């Protein structure tokens, strides 16, 4: 067996090993948090017997290797355990909340990619002119503006003053507008800066000069250049999607978006170990899949890139 299937199997094996490592780190780290989880779940008024009962039910009376092994075995059976606080399965809790975060991250990424690339291309093709300066200014603003501040500003403008959009929640499609902008602006700034610099590099290449010398219209030349500049941009977009997925906590809080970020914070506060571990595991798995998909996309964008022999 050679070529693509081998490559994919190799990547998947590496992914499983990475995930086993993630679980180990997770089990160790979660247990390093201060505060007795059994006591927190049982409540401060609970008797020592009640606390002990919960400790046993959470498996915390076992050694770390045993807890690790049990987690892996349960995982192999498709179970991430039961939430200590909600009393429901971790999978169902994550299943309820994850789609919201994914939707937000996808829209944030799309916003960042579309406006970021457009801005970057405009800046590169108008280097040194006001469009470039404006793009730089937007880039700096997008990177440095705190999510929280931008979110509140948007709410004041669109909800309080213009009365156009809901302040939060996920009831209607319009609920998505402000969180998308808030989350996407950072990504837009990063993508636009990356697009600008790679486009400037590419536009200086000989083949672009040749294309221009042949009298091909500028927009066609730019299209050629963009395709060649796309790999680093794609990498940034892929990484940004991961960042947005994990970094949506603040946005979710400001806009009361019922995503997994809020759930993660709540479960850490509750020392709900099974839920914390489940969410971290799912995030890790998504990052790994995302990395594989991004790598695969390289070869689609640029046939010269061969990921396998």
């Amino acid at each position, binding site marked *: 067996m050679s070529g693509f299937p081998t490559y994919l199997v190799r990547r998947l094996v590496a992914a499983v090993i990475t995930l086993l490592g993630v679980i180990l780190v997770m089990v160790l780290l979660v247990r390093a*948090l*201060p*505060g*007795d989880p059994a006591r*927190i*779940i*049982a*409540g*401060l*008024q*609970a008797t*020592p*017997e*009640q606390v002990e*009962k*919960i400790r046993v039910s959470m498996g915390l009376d076992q050694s770390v290797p045993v807890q690790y092994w049990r987690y892996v075995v349960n995982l192999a059976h498709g179970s991430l355990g039961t939430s200590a*606080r*909600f*009393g*429901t399965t971790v999978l169902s*809790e994550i299943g*309820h*909340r994850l789609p919201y975060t994914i939707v937000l991250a996808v829209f944030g990424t799309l916003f960042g990619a579309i406006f970021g690339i457009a801005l970057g291309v405009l800046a590169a093709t108008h280097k040194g002119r006001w469009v470039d300066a404006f793009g730089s200014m937007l880039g700096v603003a997008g990177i440095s503006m705190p999510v929280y501040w931008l*979110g*509140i500003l948007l*709410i*004041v403008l669109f*909800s*309080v003053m213009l*009365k156009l959009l*809901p*302040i*939060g*929640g*996920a009831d209607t499609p319009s609920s998505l507008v402000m969180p998308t902008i808030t989350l996407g602006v950072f990504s837009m700034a990063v993508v636009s800066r990356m697009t600008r610099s790679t486009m400037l590099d590419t536009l200086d290449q000989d083949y672009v000069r040749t294309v221009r010398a042949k009298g091909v219209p500028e927009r066609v030349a730019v299209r050629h250049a963009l395709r060649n500049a796309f790999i680093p941009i794609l990498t940034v977009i892929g990484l940004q999607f991961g960042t947005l997925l994990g970094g949506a906590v603040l946005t979710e*809080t*400001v*806009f*009361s978006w*019922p*995503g997994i970020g*809020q*759930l993660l914070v*709540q479960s*850490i*506060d*509750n*020392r709900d170990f099974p839920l914390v571990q489940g969410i971290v595991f799912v995030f890790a798995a998504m990052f790994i899949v995302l990395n594989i998909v991004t790598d695969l996309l390289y070869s689609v964008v640029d046939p010269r890139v061969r990921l396998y022999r």
Partner: protein
Amino acid sequence: MNIAQPAASRNSLLGRARIRSAIRLISVLAMGVTAYASGQSMPAPSPNATLTIGIGVDLDTVDPAQQTTTTVQNVIDYGLQTLVAFDTQGKIEPLLATSWSTSKDGLTLTFHLRQGVKFHDGTPFNADAVVFCLDRLISGKVKVPIGAGFRSMKSIEAVNPTTVAIHLKNPDPNLVPNLSITTASIFSPSSATKDGNTPMNIVHPVGTGPYEFTRWTKGSEVVYTRADHYWGREPYYKTVDFKIIPEANSREAGLLAGQLDVIMNPPITDLTSLSSNPAVKLLKAPSDRAVFIAIKVTRPPFNNEKVRQALNYAVDKDAIIKNVMFNSVNPMDSPFPSSLSGYCKVGAYPYDPAKAKQLLSEAGVKDLKITLGSPTGRYIQDIQFAQAVSGYLRKVGIDANVRTMDWPSYVAAFLQKDGPFDLHVLGWAPGALDGQTQLQMFTSETIPPKGLNSSFYSDPKVDKLAAAAALNLDDKSRNQQLCQIQKDVWQQAPWIFLWSQTLVLAYNSKITGVSYLPNEKFLTMDAHPAF
């Protein structure tokens, strides 16, 4: 998790009168406040009106036995009811029980139940339902995080369909008020295996209240619909929609944008601007939550009473209340907040840095470096006022480094005798408005790990008085015992006594009838548009 623990006792006449006068005072002083809707005539129930309430707490359960926070209780209370309840003036009233009596030996409490009441699923409310729900609190099969107030119950017996007898291990003057807490709500036993419910975990509570639980979308909202055949007076609003909005600025924006009708705890820094906004009404409700800085009394030099008193004299509480708390709290003049039964005014530690320095000098303390712990966002302006306190301590020569942690880590830290904090900020609210629960902060038997006496304060005289008060069924002598304890504790100063917190509500000025209970809960059963 809230450090709001149940346990309670009867309210004395004295206590009631004081609570009433406090409420009257607040209703006059508070900015544009409608404290309660007495005297308002209620319009006919609306066929479709919705009341949207913005709350800051993301619910972790709707199971009455498993909840731990006052806000969650507040939401659950819309659908579930208890045998007895507090009225707006802190007085115990009948609710699902119409009357009750205690046996001569104090070991049996008999409740006569309201007749003709049905649960929202159509099944009858009766003694079996009461036995089912109260037994859940003591069976050990269900997690009851704030269950200490029910430990005196030995067994619950259905004498007949309308009479329940609770047999006690020992006389317990606190049990009746404790039964007013949401933890002791009565829900339909036949619902315990339906709609995702299990006897161990209720996710769809079916009760007897004016509203029927409709849905809980985690992280988003909890919706209640007016019950069809409610036994009491029907509320105006057809639907009550609790929107979960953790961020205070977003809640405020929701109110100003007209998307929310009522919000809990608007940003404290905006109270002044909100109070001058004609579209908004503010309600600052006094609560039972004492906010204080506990001093580790076992740790030198804080084992010296003079040092602890010096800390109290060193801090200008009035200035902090004005400049950091925006006048939203009431200064403490006793270890008990004034809404608790058994409260008696003890005195004050006025701001007197010279006296503080003198006391420190007498105790031989100089160049003291300490750590002051504070949570962030747990109590109103907590880390901000901790920093202000640190500034005042510096003026008398104490270098207090403020340190914060996430809440569970913080709790774990302050419960350790040798933990990182010399002083730590804490709030404590006895949900059943009883002074006895406040004593959990001052008795030897509740020193961690057994309890939450996080200053590790211990005084045999206080212990003896507290033990006697716990079993004393006579209100008058019990209040005398509690008052003596307050004097002793105030003198020995295991805390820097700060203030009792208020529950702040902001709501659309086109609505009237929003009111509150003295245990940090709001009421909208009488709310309706101001015609």
